């Protein structure tokens, strides 16, 4: 009963926060984005906040991370620091076009959009909605807007900016686009940004998102990505979550895939106290292909929760979910994957796999791989395992003189590599391999410039 009162309070807090700041929120965003706010806040009022124990948020205690005392920045002055001076990406040989998000707002270029020679447009979503209203209008809130989740509506009501990436028809981006999402503040802070990625027909693009936190405060991010993969388009999207353990992150990703499109989205969760990733994919055209992958390595009191929903709305599509995790200390985690095959989505091939290794008796993992199938000519399967490293493999390695500890690490690394090998940006893949290796060895795995010595 207690939780319900708390939820009501939380909801009221945010409703009030919106009422009090609606003017300044809108004034520092864009008219088009502002149009959605009233409707969204009404939906928040109706849906409320997710309650732990409900089917979709069974193990995730959302209320515990939404604290009433977090600060918000709605005004124009985002941050005084010269972020470029304190942050540079240290992934060697990673050549990307860098886009900075600081506390949920696009940073740099005097808010101008980057317009690349090949026609790719990238930069502030708010700015894009002014300069390219027809593109933004077509996609903004078209995919996430149908959600019944109060947190998605909360984002729609509050989000003032985020990253906009547009790859025109037939254009193949030569460099990956890298979004560095930074939380930095001199007090505890909450931010909600909104990204929109569009790959038109036949376009190809690689996008990397790196989440960092650069000051020792409590952070909470509630972000929404909308991703449109047009016919024959190809997107490879990698997200590396590497905030400190005082930071909480809730991400919502809504992907809409047209015929013959291919989207591979990997989420590598290394650090972060509380992480909840919601992934919704709609396969809207025949022969669309989706790979949703996740790797989570957690220790101490981390909680990492992946919720994946693949909607096979068209026949002849393919989807594959692969989520793997290693949990140490008293970390806990949850995987919830659902494959929905609609009535006419015949010839669907859909797979789902979740594998976990617990390293202590205090670590806890909850796994719910689910199939919901309404068509008969389909190939669907799922598997879930929890357990130890393979004893035989361990013995084999040791019999070759490799120390027990090292042998375990090798096997864990191999376990994780199955996910990492799907990352298509080579320099990044090697870097992640390295990060994971260090992470498993308990060495500092944050990019070196992270000032945090968090627990």
């Amino acid at each position, binding site marked *: 009963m207690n939780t319900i009162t708390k939820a009501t309070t939380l909801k009221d807090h945010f409703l009030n926060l919106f009422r009090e700041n609606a003017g300044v929120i809108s004034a520092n965003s864009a008219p088009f984005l502002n149009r959605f706010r009233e409707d969204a806040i009404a939906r928040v009022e109706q849906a409320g906040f997710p309650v732990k124990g409900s089917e979709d948020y069974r193990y995730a205690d959302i209320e515990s991370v939404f604290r009433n005392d977090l600060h918000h920045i709605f005004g124009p002055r985002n941050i005084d620091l010269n972020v470029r001076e304190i942050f540079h990406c240290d992934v060697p040989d990673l050549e990307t076009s860098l886009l900075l998000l600081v506390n949920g707002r696009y940073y740099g270029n005097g808010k101008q959009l980057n317009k690349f020679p090949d026609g790719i447009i990238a930069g502030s979503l708010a700015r894009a909605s002014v300069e390219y209203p027809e593109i933004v209008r077509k996609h903004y809130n078209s995919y996430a807007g149908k959600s019944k989740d109060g947190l998605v509506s909360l984002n729609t009501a509050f989000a003032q900016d985020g990253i906009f990436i547009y790859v025109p028809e037939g254009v193949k981006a030569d460099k990956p686009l890298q979004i560095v999402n930074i939380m930095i503040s001199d007090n505890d802070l909450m931010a909600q940004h909104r990204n929109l990625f569009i790959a038109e027909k036949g376009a190809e693009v690689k996008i990397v998102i790196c989440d960092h936190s650069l000051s020792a405060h409590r952070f909470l991010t509630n972000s929404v990505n909308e991703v449109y993969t047009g016919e024959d388009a190809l997107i490879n999207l990698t997200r590396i979550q590497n905030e400190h353990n005082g930071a909480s992150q809730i991400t919502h990703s809504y992907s809409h895939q047209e015929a013959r499109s291919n989207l591979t989205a990997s989420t590598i969760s290394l650090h972060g106290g509380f992480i909840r990733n919601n992934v919704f994919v709609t396969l809207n055209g025949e022969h669309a292909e989706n790979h949703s992958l996740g790797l989570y390595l957690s220790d101490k009191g981390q909680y990492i929760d992946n919720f994946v929903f693949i909607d096979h709305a068209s026949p002849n599509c393919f989807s594959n979910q692969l989520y793997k995790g290693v949990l140490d200390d008293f970390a806990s985690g949850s995987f919830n994957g659902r494959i929905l095959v609609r009535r006419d989505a015949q010839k669907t091939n859909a797979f789902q796999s979740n594998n976990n290794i*617990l390293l202590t008796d205090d670590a*806890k993992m909850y796994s719910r791989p689910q199939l919901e*199938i309404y*068509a008969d*000519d389909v*190939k669907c399967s799922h*598997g879930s*395992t929890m*357990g130890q490293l393979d004893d035989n493999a361990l013995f084999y390695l040791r019999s070759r003189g490799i120390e027990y500890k090292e042998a375990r690490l090798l096997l864990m690394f191999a376990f994780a590599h199955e996910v990492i090998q799907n990352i298509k940006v080579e320099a990044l893949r090697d870097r992640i391999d390295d990060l994971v290796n260090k992470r498993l060895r308990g060495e500092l795995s944050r990019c070196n410039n992270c000032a945090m010595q968090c627990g």
Partner: protein
Amino acid sequence: MQNEQDQILNDVTTGEYKYGFYTDIEQDTIGRGLSEDVIRQISQIKKEPEFMLEFRLRAYRHWLTMKMPEWAHLNIPAIDYQDLTYYSAPRQKARLNSLDEVDPELLDTFNKLGIPLEEQKQLSGVAVDAVMDSVSVKTTFRENLAELGIIFCSFSDAVKEYPDLVRKYMGSVVPYTDNYFAALNSAVFSDGSFCYIPKGVRCPMELSTYFRINAANSGQFERTLIVAEDNSYVSYMEGCTAPMRDENQLHAAIVEIIAMESAEVKYATVQNWYPGNKEGKGGIYNFVTKRGICKGDNSKISWTQVETGSAITWKYPSCILKGNNTTGEFYSVAVTNNHQQADTGTKMIHIGKNSKSIIVSKGISSGVSNNSYRGLVKVLRGADNARNFSQCDSLLLGDKCGAHTFPYIESGNQTAIIEHEATTSRIGEDQIFYCNQRGINTEDAIGLIVNGYAKEVLNKLPMEFAVEAQKLLQISLEGSVG
């Protein structure tokens, strides 16, 4: 070929439910509705000791605070609990001393169901407790079993004759607070079976309860309690049927099993309640709570179920593996056709060290039905070396049905190994063609393939049931390939 298959599908789905007849017999009933008075009346009719009435009232008061569970993948129409009859019994003279006193109509009813109660016709090797609506009609072989110290009788008799045993174990595995239907059952249950196997005794015959709903508008709420003491063994079977009626009827039962050290209990169900007609009218709502506890070390509980009937099934036979080295098993074939809905599976709770569980679930959906597996495997912190393997397969016959799998896996022990696998498939046209080419007609081919698919589970059934279950599968399904 397509047309021919559709034709067969039609023929089969219009096939009549074999056990849909109604026995016209005088009934003693309590009027519709549920209240503390009704509960007092039930308790009074059954001449129960005071503790039973108190138990019922506590359960009822708790039930009033609860809501119907909504998490299942089921579409359950609202149930008006005040419109049901909670007690209905075939009118009988005093107490039965010999079968001559059993109403011939009743004997005839059970004969038609293939459960002869007359001494000379009784199935050899199977002791039967026959339950019609709210009461037990007859328990066979009771005296023979008593010679071994085995108690096998109706629940009502047990309450009167063995109140201490009933008091000690009733509600110890499924407390009335457990869930909505368990609370309802605890308040109004009318009869059921009681079974007690003393230390070191291997029950020499299959024990069985046959449930029959006969009266209209009545709910059936029975309770089964099985206690197996150290080193004992019993194999238990349960069967059920109901007349065809247009309105839905509610069946909310509880089964509790307690297995002490090194005891083994096998529990098999062939559930064939009336599933409703092909338009989805009528049929039984089957909301059942079945749970066993492997209390002592090295004990074992095995559930096997063949679920073909009922309009809606909500049922999760479970094992609490409390002792060390205990084993829990769940083998299930669930068939849904026409408008049937099933949400069924199991829970395996690993508490003891080296506890093992295996889950094999075979769902078969056809028509416009929905068939879900829902199962929990939970390993608690102290359950070192716990091991679970789950295999949950779905077979879809036709493109208008649904097959779903919702496992819940929770691990809190690093040495536990849990594996879950599931696949979804259909009967391929090439498989049918292959059979056709070998001279097997399509209908038989489907029967063969479905039986092959379900074989792993059917093999776990006691012999007496296996044949019936196979036939049942064939009747429920054949020709359903689209």
